[in-house]
């Protein structure tokens, strides 16, 4: 219970933010933050708990975005319904890919994950009938969100996105807690620590990793669908590009890998720093990620969370 109290307090406080803050820019920052948290937590399931450093998660992000938008454009299905179809597609493809690539270890798995994402990006680029190619898809005619007969929002302000983003981030955090405390969570962490030992203790390696990947890909695709709806435009490089995957990984590394709080802290640091430096960096905003990851890897390999925990433990021991 004591673990959840701070999270619940933070969630309630955040839910009240739009009562005081009306500035679209401030709300925009919050929405970016929620998106980064959701993506970091999604990657954390397979990268953090299971230690499978996928640098190809843009594939699932892009599938979520494209799935939702293609259904909107072709069949006029609202994205918040369409995204579930997209999630299903992402999970099916992820499991198929996992079945082949999870036999690879260490750096070879990293390379394979990049190759898979590149193949999917190139497919999206070239399958013009379906995806509109490099021109991308612009969200047109997003229907208003109705509940019963009443219109809840017609998406003209940032507030509905704020709550949707907050809900999504909380959902991903909750999934992390559930996974971490479940049998699957133990299995994934055992695999991360020592694959052979895990295997000898009765853990089915591929099945466990694939289950983790499926959950991770589903959350990532959900975030992809949300991002597409919020930004209103997608194109292959923007959603399938390796930069998306790298940002997900680095958010977790900077915050602290394999912990639930890590991606949250990583997201806060990265989003705030990027925004603060946006004016001077403009399109070179990934510089923040580059510099931070170098500092973190060299000085605190367990991320901010690990660094603080280590400090606290030392203090307690002293």
């Amino acid at each position: 219970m004591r673990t959840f109290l701070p999270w619940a307090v933070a969630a309630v406080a955040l839910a009240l933010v739009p009562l005081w803050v009306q500035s679209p820019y401030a709300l925009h920052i919050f929405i970016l933050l929620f998106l980064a948290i959701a993506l970091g937590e999604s990657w954390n399931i397979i990268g953090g708990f299971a230690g499978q450093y996928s640098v190809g998660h843009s594939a699932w992000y892009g599938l979520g975005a494209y799935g939702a938008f293609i259904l909107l454009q072709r069949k006029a299905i609202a994205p918040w319904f369409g995204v579930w179809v997209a999630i299903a597609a992402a999970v099916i493809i992820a499991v198929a890919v996992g079945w082949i690539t999870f036999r690879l270890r260490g750096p070879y798995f990293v390379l394979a994950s990049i190759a898979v994402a590149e193949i999917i990006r190139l497919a999206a680029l070239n399958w013009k009938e379906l995806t509109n190619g490099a021109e991308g898809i612009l969200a047109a005619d997003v229907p208003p969100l109705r509940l019963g007969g009443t219109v809840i929002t017609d998406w003209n302000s940032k507030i509905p996105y704020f709550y949707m983003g907050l809900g999504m981030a909380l959902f991903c955090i909750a999934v992390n807690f559930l996974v971490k405390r479940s049998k699957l969570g133990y299995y994934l962490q055992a695999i991360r620590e020592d694959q052979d030992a895990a295997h000898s203790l009765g853990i089915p390696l591929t099945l466990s990793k694939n289950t983790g990947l499926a959950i991770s890909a589903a959350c990532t695709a959900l975030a992809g669908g949300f991002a597409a709806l919020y930004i209103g435009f997608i194109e292959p490089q923007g959603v399938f590009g390796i930069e998306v995957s790298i940002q997900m990984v680095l958010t977790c590394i900077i915050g602290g890998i394999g912990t639930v709080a890590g991606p949250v802290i990583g997201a806060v640091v990265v989003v705030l720093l990027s925004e603060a430096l946006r004016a001077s960096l403009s399109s070179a905003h990934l510089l923040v990620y580059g510099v931070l990851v170098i500092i973190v890897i060299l000085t605190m390999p367990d991320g901010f969370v690990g660094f603080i925990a280590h400090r606290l433990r030392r203090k307690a021991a002293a």
Partner: protein
Amino acid sequence: MTALLEVRNVSRFFGGVTANLDVSFSVDQGVVLGLIGPNGAGKTTLFNCITGFYPPSRGEIFFEGQRINGFPPDKVCRLGMARTWQKVRPLAKLTVLDNTVVGALCHTNSVPEARQIALEQLRVVGLEKRANVLAGGLPIGERKKLELARVMATKPRMILLDEVMGGLNARESEEIIGLILDVKKRGLTQVVIEHDMKAIVRTCDRIVVLNSGEKLAEGSPQQIVNDPRVMAAYLGDSGGAKA
């Protein structure tokens, strides 16, 4: 009564190198079998073949009458045969308790239940006070005990211990011998790889001797100790080029 484990004409080749050649033996329920032999005799390779880390090149392995060749290690473990590692492999960033919980989850889906089983096993090996320490920070003696607790938590019918006394001091070895005898009293079948002959003679009912991958001798501890071929094999080893 059929044997619990039966190894039938097992050979294992790596490229042109023969690690095991035509090894056969069986282990009856409740027996502690010692597997001994000079360095490089193929003891650990045989363990790896039995527990599914690589399939034998030739021959067959039966566990409770079921042919288990080519079964993956996780399946072998769920069937009731668990092994420890010569070079201990703690899950370093998990606590001692969580390491054992991982083993206990082999036969339950409930984490709280697994925790109960794990605590019980930690008490048996005397690690309950260290339950919340990270496994990576344990000294070697406690790591070996953790391996044992973790393996016992999988509720095995048979355990394979790969040099659980290697690198331990006399007092720690004595504790492990006590644990092995304790486990034996509960009727659990064990195969033990060990270098210390005194420990082997004290714990084992039967002994199989491997030399250069082949079975050299099998018999009771008394027979083995008095077997001149066994002596020769060991002397040959210490006289030869040792790495």
